[in-house]
């Protein structure tokens, strides 16, 4: 291949270049701006991301090119995820501005890193070759390591990032080793090359499948799929809330963007061999659903709860990826659709939690007690978000689950779908515990009293004042707690994020058809077979 066709369609990478440049610009501006104006950077980066999304849509719509002899793909799939990631970035930035100003120093680097990680994610969605994938994945990971550690004084944040980076480095080593084995057997590391190798050889050389196993393990860490999930709760809990949100939403989405393309282009074409290997992902999926949702039952810390529940959701997504098929887009659609819906919903929850944290500095479940009286809007947002996550209509959570589980069942894994449905019943229980704190428990005078209210598994314990009663007879209705302190109103940016998120949650739940068309075009790009 010659230099011409290497650089022929270089312009297709304009968005990435722009993004990189823009990130650097933010770093530079950080030096120039005075501290009280640092939050301008946040607005600037948000604006930039919006612009970037528009730019990429304008430039790349309808393109279907493969750059560098098949290293990077510029197609509907990557475009979809680019816009998606930019959107997430915008929301994360908007919801973190106050937080950053209040709790973190070096805001400039924060936003810069965030932009770089988005660049990494975009590349993950584009890459069709293992090394490229790895590099962009590391670009994302490094930014995340730093961002998790961002609360300098806070030992938890520090510990979280330490565990995160150690396990992350380990997993990247594993991934690389797998890569090297694939290379040593095939001599190439492009996805379709792997697919060809799998297709022609009637027996797979041990080195190859061992390599693939190693790769899957490495990626399993990124997905936080059982048994590679243990870092997640700690990293989530340690990280500053916006970063937790970012971890839960963006990095997961990016990892799945990568995994989907990898599976779709390297494995699925292998036909019956892929049918053999499905079961591996299926088992991982089942384990993730069970472990994630069961352990989440025992959590007290909101971030940790979200971490485990996200492990559960990874289980559902893995089930979706396991049923990718040459002849039907159902699985791919399901996964992508689920990613979008899940992100939107968690965005609502996290934004509301951030607002709550900004006001109170608390992130334990019992601290939410009486939120419905103290700050109704946030309470409603969290409640709707959690209902949606547990898969109840009219929210998007129901629609995405229905779509995804239908896909799973349709590929012959009805039992897996059943397990998924059952585990989302379990998830309903712990989500309801949170809602119960917000709506039913009276507001606490001091967080210390949290303990007695926490023991209320299934709410068996009676309300203290009620136990005195003689016969079947209690005060008529739950009276509003007299001593609660109303919370200050969240900032407009947060309200906007939550509001938009809520609208999206309901709108997508009630009428997902338009989104699904885009999703289908995206998945059609990686599964041309159907």
């Amino acid at each position: 291949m010659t230099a011409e066709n290497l650089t022929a369609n270089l312009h297709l990478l304009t968005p990435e270049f722009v993004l990189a440049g823009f990130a650097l610009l933010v770093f530079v501006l950080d030096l120039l701006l005075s501290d009280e104006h640092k939050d301008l950077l946040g607005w600037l980066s948000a604006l930039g991301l919006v612009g970037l999304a528009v730019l990429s849509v304008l430039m790349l719509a309808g393109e279907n090119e493969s750059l560098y002899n098949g290293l990077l793909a510029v197609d509907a799939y990557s475009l979809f995820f680019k816009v998606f990631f930019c959107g997430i970035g915008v929301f994360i930035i908007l919801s973190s501005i106050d937080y950053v100003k209040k709790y973190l120093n070096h805001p400039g680097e924060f936003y810069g890193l965030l932009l770089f990680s988005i660049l990494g994610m975009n590349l993950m969605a584009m890459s069709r070759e293992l090394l490229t994938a790895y590099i962009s994945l590391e670009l994302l990971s490094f930014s995340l390591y730093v961002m998790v550690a961002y609360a300098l004084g806070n030992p938890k944040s520090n510990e979280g990032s330490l565990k995160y980076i150690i396990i992350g480095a380990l997993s990247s080593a594993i991934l690389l080793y797998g890569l090297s084995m694939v290379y040593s057997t095939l001599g190439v590391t492009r996805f379709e090359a792997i697919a060809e190798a799998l297709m022609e050889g009637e027996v797979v050389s041990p080195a190859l499948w061992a390599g693939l196993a190693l790769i899957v393990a490495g990626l399993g860490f990124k997905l936080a799929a059982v048994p590679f999930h243990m870092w997640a709760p700690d990293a989530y809990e340690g990280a500053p809330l916006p970063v937790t949100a970012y971890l839960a939403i963006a990095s997961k989405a990016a990892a799945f963007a990568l995994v989907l393309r990898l599976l779709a282009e390297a494995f699925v074409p292998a036909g019956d061999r892929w049918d053999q290997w499905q079961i591996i992902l299926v088992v991982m999926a089942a384990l993730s659903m069970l472990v994630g949702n069961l352990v989440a039952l025992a959590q007290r810390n909101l971030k940790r709860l979200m971490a485990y529940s996200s492990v559960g959701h990874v289980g559902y997504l893995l089930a979706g990826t396991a049923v990718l098929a040459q002849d039907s887009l159902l699985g791919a659609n399901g996964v992508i659709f689920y990613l979008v819906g899940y992100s939107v919903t968690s965005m609502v929850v996290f934004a509301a939690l951030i607002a709550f944290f900004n006001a109170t500095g608390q992130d334990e479940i019992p601290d939410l007690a009486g939120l419905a009286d103290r700050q109704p809007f946030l309470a409603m947002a969290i409640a709707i978000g959690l209902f949606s996550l547990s898969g109840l209509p009219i929210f998007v959570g129901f629609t995405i689950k229905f779509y995804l589980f239908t896909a799973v069942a349709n590929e012959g894994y009805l039992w897996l779908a059943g397990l998924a449905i059952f585990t989302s019943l379990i998830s309903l229980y712990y989500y309801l515990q949170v809602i119960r704190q917000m709506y039913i428990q009276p507001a606490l005078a001091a967080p210390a009293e949290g303990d007695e209210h926490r023991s209320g598994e299934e709410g068996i314990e009676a309300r203290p004042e009620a136990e005195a009663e003689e016969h079947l007879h209690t005060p008529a209705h739950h009276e509003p707690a007299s001593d609660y302190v109303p919370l200050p109103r969240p900032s407009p940016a947060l309200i906007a994020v939550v509001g938009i998120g809520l609208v999206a949650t309901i709108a997508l739940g009630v009428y997902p058809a338009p989104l699904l068309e885009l999703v289908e075009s995206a998945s059609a790009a990686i599964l041309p077979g159907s």
Partner: protein
Amino acid sequence: MVWAWLIPVLSFAAVPLIILFGKRLPAKGSPLAILAILAGFAIFWVVFAGFLSASPDTEGCEIGVGTEALTCNFKITWFEAGIPGADTSNHDRIEVAWGMTIDPLTIAMLGLATFVALMVQIYSLGYMRDHDGNFDPRLDWYYAFHALFIASMLTLVLADNFLLLYVAWELVGLCSYLLIGFWHERPEPREAAKKAFIVTRIGDVGLLVGILLLWSQVGSFSMTETFAAIENGVLSDGVITVSALLLFLGAMGKSAQFPFHVWLPDAMEGPTPVSALIHAATMVAAGVYLVARAFPLFSASDTAMLVVATIGLITALGAATIALVATDLKRILAYSTISHLGLMMLSLGAFGYTAAVFHLLAHGFAKALLFLGAGSVMHSTDELDVRQMGGLRRVMPVTAILFSIGALSLGGIPILAGFWSKDEILVAVNKELPVIFIVLTLVTALFSALYMARAMFVVFYGRFAEQFEHVHDAPKTMSITMGLLAVFAIVFGLLALDLPGPFKGIGYFIFYHEGHGLVVVAWVMGLSTLLAIAAFIFGYLAYARRSINLDGTRGTFARVLEVAENKYYVDEIYQWTVDRVVLSLSRFIAWVDRALVNDVGINGPGDITRVLGDRLKYHVTGYVYTYALAMALGLIGLAIFWWLVSR
């Protein structure tokens, strides 16, 4: 004749009017009810006349199946269920009609019910006042219930299909519940009402099942079609017997046959006029009426007939003995009712169709009279224990005379109504059943004469009880009504004789298969007359003149008397069953529901899941090398698994 439906409907119409506007109307709207039933009574005569002039070719009339008597049916559809337009005979659809059948039995019952109800309602105008003469505060409800009561009873006797009959049947039960428990502030009426409703309800289960059984065989609820089916031998004997017995279960509940008789004596906790109505014309009459109405069914099964007769006899004899020793005036009357109902059942069981219905009517008038009398005694003296009373005729002569007429009539003193009907029963029993039945029946007859004598002489004659010095006799409304009833109690029996004119005597009017005149069996008539007169003479000597001293005899029969005075402990047995069996069963079930079904069955899995999560969480130790280990193991596991599947 078609206008017969107005008779119940008028009273029904009165109910909401009284409930809604009663408070504002004079006398709390009681006139509405009385007018309604008065109109009903009037219409009854029109219908009666119409029926006498009717013939098989009159529109809607025919010769009834089973009873060869003239029967007229009129009906409109009420509702249908099931596949629209499907054939009812294959049970894919049921069609229920508002329909009435008019035959001699109906006519008789209509007459009795409307008349007694009219009397009772007028009487109540006087009775439902306190001593200062102002009305009971809930008089409007009282009359509303009365109207509903009689309306339901009239529907019952008019119904041409079993379902409608059951509907009215239940409503009658409800009204008796409401009226018995009318003074619900006191616990006894409350309990009595509950008892009445539930006991009869148990019987009704049988009735409903019987009806459904017949439906499942015939495919229709119409009596005519059912009886036709029986005539044509569509039904197997087994079905006939079973369904007859099931219907009889219902009849036993309503007509207080043993062992369902327990509710009736307590029922006199309600206002006395209500007792009169229940005992004479409405509630208890329903059971006998049902058996008479379904006579084609019963007579088709000898077993059923024998059961009916036996139960009737047991009831009659047992109740009579209890009545002999009871000390509460109203209880005496109550048990006498039970006993006489027993006689009617016995007579039905002995194919004494005419006799039973005839006795039902005669007894109705007499018993109503007696209860109203007892009511007026109670109203003036507030006393019911006969041992406290005596010689009341001095202060309340009218009541005394009228009560005595009733007592004599019921006791079977010749030419009074009771004499004729009882005689016909004896004849029927003598004709159809083994000799033991006739013997015991005569004993019962003797007893019933005895306790009537006792009640009458102890209360009104003999030594005057001083504490009633200045009680006054019943007011006009009460005495007039009693007087009217007394007239019937005297002359009604003469219908038994062969009369000139279109109405050739009751035997030619109410009959089964073929009419017949008065049948006289000399020795039976003689013996029963003898017994009755003897009983009354004995009573006069023993209770009025006190020339025979019974106190000595008590010792010898102590044990027997005790058993009888305790009503054979039937109530106690029931009480024990309810408390020890039913309630503890329900407590046990409730406990099972909480402890096992809920706490184990429903909470259990939830708790297990939660505990599981709680244990499982410890796998995230917080030590980074554990995480690494997990990854390593996961990696190895993955590799092995991969190797396995890709082999």
